[in-house]
């Protein structure tokens, strides 16, 4: 029996979150491992938070460390907002092999075959929140039209200077 409403976007700190794709066991295990380690950092450093850049590199390092032992079969999109950096928001895309790039958009999983091209065409420098959400919804719509697998539920989260918030659930917000 499949669960249709699993929240795969783990909140790492007050201003960052990580979307993970992969087998459910690794997915849950890895996102908890990363988020709890970052929480530990905050506790042992007087509440000081790591920047998104540092969080992404920590995450990447853990993937690379695990690769030669028992790899986490997860691909990750990690985003965060830093009040101190001039650009504010930043997004990092990484795979289970431990490669990591800072990008303007990212998609993981089978759906990336459809969505990356849409993002590539429609993403623009300086988009506002509304435009970005519309782009994401465009991708979802396209998936539901063309994709072999029926995916009815999507959760959308927004990270800005106020922190992480859930913008919308899918059709079935049970358990969320």
């Amino acid at each position, binding site marked *: 029996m499949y669960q249709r409403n699993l929240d795969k976007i783990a909140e790492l700190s007050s201003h960052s979150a990580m979307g993970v794709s992969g087998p459910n066991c690794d997915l849950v295990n890895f996102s908890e491992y990363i988020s709890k380690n970052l929480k530990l950092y905050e506790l042992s450093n007087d509440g*000081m938070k*790591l920047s998104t*850049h540092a969080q992404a*590199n*920590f995450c990447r390092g853990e993937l690379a460390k695990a690769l030669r032992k028992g790899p986490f079969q997860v691909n990750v999109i990690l985003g965060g907002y830093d009040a*101190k950096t001039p650009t504010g928001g930043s997004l990092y895309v990484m795979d289970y092999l431990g490669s990591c790039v800072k990008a303007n958009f990212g998609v993981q999983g089978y759906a990336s075959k459809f969505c990356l091209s849409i993002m590539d065409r429609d993403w623009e420098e300086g988009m506002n929140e509304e435009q970005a959400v519309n782009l994401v919804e465009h991708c979802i719509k396209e998936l539901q039209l063309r994709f072999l697998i029926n995916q009815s539920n999507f959760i959308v989260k927004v990270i800005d200077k106020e922190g992480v918030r859930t913008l919308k659930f899918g059709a079935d917000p049970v358990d969320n």
Partner: protein
Amino acid sequence: MARRYDSSTTTFSPEGRLHQVEYAIEAINNAGTSVGILAKDGVVMASEKKITSGLLAKARTSEKTYKLCPHATCSVAGLTADANILIDQARLRAARYAYQYQEPIPLESLVEHVCNYKQAYTQYGGLRPFGVAFLFAGYDEAHGFQLYQSDPSGNYSGWKATVIGANNQAGKSLLKTEYGVSKKKDGDDEMKTEDDVPALTDAVIEMPDVAEACRLAVKVLNKTMDGAVASAEKLELFTMSLDEDGNCVHKILTEEEAKAVIAEVEAESASAGDT
């Protein structure tokens, strides 16, 4: 009787004291002095180099000031041999943090790590404490320029200006009266005793710039070195500041540059005497 509690660091004496740790702290009070001063655009550290023999070949590298990573440097008072172990630890910690997070380590985190290492030697059996006190000067994104002091017990604290080593009390009292108020009080402070000087609060203190801090550091060393006039070969001046790209610049002043600072201090004190 006291001897029974001297040999092992792990044992409290009946008065509730750890003698070995106290002796280690005391040992540093006889070591070459180091002054640290926080400036508004950087940090200055000045150390006394004790010249043991004229026959000794001149060291090619610094003996008192060690760079730990691109944004932190420490100054040593005490046993250099012990310090080397701790400096290795600090460098390792800084490098590992940078490797893990691809970002410079927050300075306090680095200081805390070294101090935890020191503390372990005051608690586990069969070890003696490190006979070293440090001044850490550094910069990080969160808190800007910072200055920390640590002692053999593993305690550390942040300062605007402080002194470790021989005569540190005399040095601290000079800093107390002169740090941040030297300019404003120029000329009218001669009649004042120490008690008249208003308590230093954040409102009163106007932080010096690096050049001013250098002069104040030399002044303090002049005082702690028991009247022996500080000469360029007997002291080491270190400054840390930021360049226009926001990178840390570490600099140990050359003998000529140090001489220039000393000359300025002498000129200043001579003119102060005239009025």
